[in-house]
Each structure stands twice: as C-alpha cells, then as structure tokens.
C-alpha cells in the first residue's frame, strides 16, 4: 500500500497546488463588481458570436476515433515494451503484425482525407 500512498500524496499535492494559486490570486486581486462583459467566456480575446452549444464537425469524431485506436494499441504495447528484454523474436513479430494492422487504419484515414482540416 505504501507505493499507492506515495501516489496519493502526490495526487493531493497536485490538486492543492492550483487551488492554492487561485485562492492566492483571489485574495490579493482587486474585486470590482462583475459586469456582463467580464462574465463572457474568454476566446482569444474575441467576443463569442451566437450560441456556443452547437453541433461539431464530424472531423473531430474521426480524429478521436483514430486516437482511440492507437490509445488501445498503447495498452497492448506497454506490457510488451516493459518486458521486451525477456521476450523473444516471436513476440517481436507478433507485435509487428499488431502495429502494422493499426497502421493500415491510419493509412486508410490519411488516404480518405479524414485527417485533412479545411
């Protein structure tokens, strides 16, 4: 449990740090009355136009899906990479097939222009 306790302490510290920074800036800053302009979401200094709750382009979804495929790939790659020294050429070949199958997906997405942003 002691390893997890270290992670727990680290987690608490990382959560406390931004809270402390924001609390400090709240304590020391001047507090004028809020106006409508001040409550606007910050979008690169430009005022937002129209509703912000809109439908998104399908390209976001395709990017997310390609990301998901490789994210799941990482799950299988991680134990293989961690134990690489103890595994033989057979495991290497198996993983090569695995990665090349995923790469076919990336190649197809590329070919079909799913990664283009216009």
């Amino acid at each position: 449990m002691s390893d997890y306790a270290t992670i727990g302490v680290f987690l608490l510290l990382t959560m406390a740090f931004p809270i402390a920074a924001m609390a400090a800036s709240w304590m020391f800053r001047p507090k004028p009355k809020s106006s409508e302009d001040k409550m606007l979401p910050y979008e690169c200094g430009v005022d937002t136009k129209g509703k912000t709750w809109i439908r998104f382009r399908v390209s976001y979804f395709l990017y997310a899906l390609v990301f998901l495929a490789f994210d799941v790939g990482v799950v299988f790659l991680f134990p293989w990479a961690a134990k690489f020294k103890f595994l033989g050429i057979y495991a290497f070949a198996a993983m090569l097939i695995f990665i090349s199958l995923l790469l076919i997906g990336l190649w197809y997405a590329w070919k079909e222009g799913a990664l283009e942003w216009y």
Partner: protein
Amino acid sequence: MDISLADLAFIILAGFTLLTALGVVLFKNIVHSAIMLVFSFLGVAGIYFTMHAGFLGLVQILVYAGAISVLIIFAIMLVMNQDPEKTNLPSPNIPNIMAGTYLTILLVGALVGSIWFTSFPEKVAPVSGDELGLLTGLMLGDYVIPLELAALLLLVAVVGAIILARGAEHK
C-alpha cells in the same frame, strides 16, 4: 467492527463512483452527464488500484476516462441540436419507462443472483509480484491470436467510421 485503511479507501471510492454514476442518470444536461461518466470511470480505476491491479487501473484511466469519454462527448456534440438544458430528461413515453424498468430488474436480478450463488473463498493468494510479466506472457503466448484480432477490430472500427462519415459528407 474494524475498518482498515484499505476498507476506508474502498468505501470512499465506491461511494464516489456510485454518486457520479447517479449523476450520469439524473443530470438534465447530457454534457454534464458525460463529464460525470468520466469521474465514474476514474472512481472505478481507483477501486482497481486498491485491489492492487495497477495495470488494469492505468488502462481504465487511459482508455475509458481518456479516450472512450472523448468519443462519447464528440458523439453528443455531433447529434445535439436542441437546448442543452433539456437533452437528458426522463422519457415521458410509458413503453420506454416500462422497458427501462424491466431491463433494470433483469440486470439487478442477474447481479444479485451471481453474487449470491458465488462461493467466495476466505482468502485468495495475491498474484506474486510480477503481475505485468504474467500478463505479457499470456498476451504474447496463449492469447496471441486474440491480440491480433483486437488490432483487426480496431482497424474495422476506424475504416467503418470513416466510410460512414464520408458518406454523410458527400450527401
């Protein structure tokens, strides 16, 4: 009744997971529900960590809280075209409510039944030390074909989604 530190961690994490899961169902705005789902996934990952299944916990955070949730949020953003405050209201349709109730009873029954009829041994020996090595050995040994099939499944998912999206854009 003695409560050890591990028990306390489990109780806190289980409570957190249940509360956030309830939030998924009860929030009126479906985007808030999706965010609650992320917290619920993180709670489950915490429970894996308390069970000393560190790798599984990491996978839970990486895949479920990281990728699946992004996919769900994008899917919501793709189809949402109404007032966000009313996207996750309980259905007014009576057959829908009845179907939901039936499914809930079925699931709870199956869960309670399977817990009730399983004989839990008093003490299970933990996997000795090298959990990752054991996993790797199985993954690249006995289960190498399912591993390649998983890659094939991911490939089919990517290609299928691209075909669907392209078709929608050409129309």
